[in-house]
């Protein structure tokens, strides 16, 4: 397998914050809106350097989303910033009508996604956001895996004309993809080639998939790891090409099984290339308080869970 090294753990939201500062300097049309979470969203440097393009809306997310939609009328490129929970469910109708249906160039940037938000508990741990956003026609849904990739994705979406949901997280996680990488929306990344099974992972679970790949190799199982940073539009070609080689698939994500990445991969493969699939995802449950690592373990989203899913799918493949 291809080996990856953690160059030093960082939070993905800081990659977003760094990219926003850079965008502030390079693109005068970029405007940031934030609903009273400037430090958590790592937007302090943008707010400090570009106060005339930083709009504090207060705790009023519905207003924030619609103001963002209005800003596009006039050619601005608005980035909204709040937690995943308040970026989606709380404002679903505003996003649906004023952003998605209206085809507006709004970038909905959501931190603290998934279970690894941790101690704040289930009220804030949104694990339905990918599902909600991907159901909206023409919405692009992106979930990068580490600091460097989140930074690259944030820069990339500024060049994409259309609504985007960009999802990232709170905890420090291994930073292993290259600094200064080019991010291509909708292009899956083959991280490690393998023969026996395809592991499609997104977000924080990409590193877990690589860890699982390493452990499986010690047992003589060759797994292919593919980073699906863009859940919609899904890189169908890459997914099908991989399962043609391996004959089975495991998906891994920090999200409910309903509506998540696994659901998208399964829909595709059922129609185009049916193979056994196992899914590492939350099983129809709300989260709870705890540390990110404790929660990943408890909710079945850790490295051993990926290993077990691979073994389960291989058993089905052989039978």
């Amino acid at each position: 397998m291809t080996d990856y090294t953690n160059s030093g753990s960082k939070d993905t939201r800081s990659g977003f914050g760094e990219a926003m500062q850079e965008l502030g300097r390079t693109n005068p049309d970029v405007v940031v809106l934030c609903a009273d979470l400037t430090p958590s969203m790592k937007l302090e440097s943008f707010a400090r350097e570009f106060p005339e393009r930083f709009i504090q809306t207060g705790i009023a997310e519905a207003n924030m989303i619609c103001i963002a939609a209005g800003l596009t009328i006039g050619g601005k490129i608005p980035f909204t910033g709040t937690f995943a929970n308040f970026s989606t469910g709380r404002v679903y109708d505003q996003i649906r009508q004023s952003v998605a249906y209206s085809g507006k160039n709004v970038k909905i940037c959501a931190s603290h996604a998934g279970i690894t938000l941790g101690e704040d508990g289930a009220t804030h741990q949104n694990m339905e956001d990918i599902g909600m956003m991907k159901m909206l026609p023409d919405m692009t849904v992106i979930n990068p895996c580490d600091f460097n990739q989140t930074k690259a994705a944030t820069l990339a979406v500024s060049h994409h004309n259309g609504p985007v949901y960009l999802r990232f997280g709170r905890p420090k996680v291994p930073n292993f993809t290259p600094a200064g990488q080019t991010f291509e929306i909708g292009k899956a990344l083959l991280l490690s080639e393998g023969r026996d099974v395809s592991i499609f992972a997104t977000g924080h679970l990409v590193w877990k998939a690589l860890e699982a790949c390493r452990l499986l190799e010690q047992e003589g199982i060759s797994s292919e790891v593919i980073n699906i940073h863009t859940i919609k539009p899904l890189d169908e070609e890459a997914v099908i090409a991989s399962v043609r080689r391996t004959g089975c698939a495991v998906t891994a994500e920090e999200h409910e099984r309903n509506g998540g990445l696994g659901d998208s991969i399964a829909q595709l493969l059922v129609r185009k290339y049916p193979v056994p699939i196992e899914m590492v995802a939350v099983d129809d449950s709300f989260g709870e308080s705890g540390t990110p690592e404790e929660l990943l373990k408890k909710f079945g989203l850790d490295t051993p869970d990926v290993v077990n899913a691979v073994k389960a799918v291989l058993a089905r493949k052989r039978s």
Partner: protein
Amino acid sequence: MPATEELRRISSQVRRDIIRMVNGASSGHPGGSLGVADFLTVLYFEVMRPDPLKFDMNGKNEDIFFLSNGHVCPAWYSVMARYGFFPVKELGTFRKLGSRLQGHPATIERLPGVRIASGSLGQGLSVSIGAAIAKKMNGDSHLVYALCGDGELQEGSNWEALMFAPAKKIDNLIAVVDYNGKQIDGPVDKVMPLGNLRAKFEAFGWIVTDMDGNNIEDIITVLNKVKAGAGKGKPNMIIMHTHMGYGVDFMTDNHEWHGVPPNNDQAARALGQLQETLGDY
């Protein structure tokens, strides 16, 4: 500049269009549409006077308008068609399969004049604020107009917008509330009273002006006055007093005509009360 009488002739035709559109579609919202026909006529033909042949989504260097209570779009579609944004005959496609004139306004069919979808209530005021901020950022001194319904103010997100605009000195925005006192389930005062709207808006920091929305002269006077008073650090709110169903006697002030189309007999009776001035589509 069209004389007041000419504006009255246009709004009479707009009302005929509204009746014929909702009757032709066997669905739609005649009550509120009839109520705002005078306002939209004056806004387009007298106050904003945009160039219909140069419609641009970004609306830079021109006054722009947003309709938040999208269900009164028959009035808006008719005014835009009569003004020249798209062919008048297209009004006959309202709410029909393949039409650019969707049941509620939409951008996806690229109907000239429409810049955002509306229908699900409580969003247009915020959208207008965003467009107004973009104008300021672009150094564009033109104005943004927004129309919303009175019942619509029951949507809580409006009050987020009402709090925001004065706090951020959005003084290039002129918002208008269609205060007809009626909504689907009955009088607004019975369904969910709005209380003293003027006092509420003023407490939030808006400049508030009352206007008789079914009086062409008053609409011209008030709009010009408010327009002249814009740009002074505060957003403007017009409480526009209208009658639901205005112009058709059996529909006037009757909330039951909010979202019910007239049948053929009723449409004929209504049209009998509205002079055909510009030629039916």
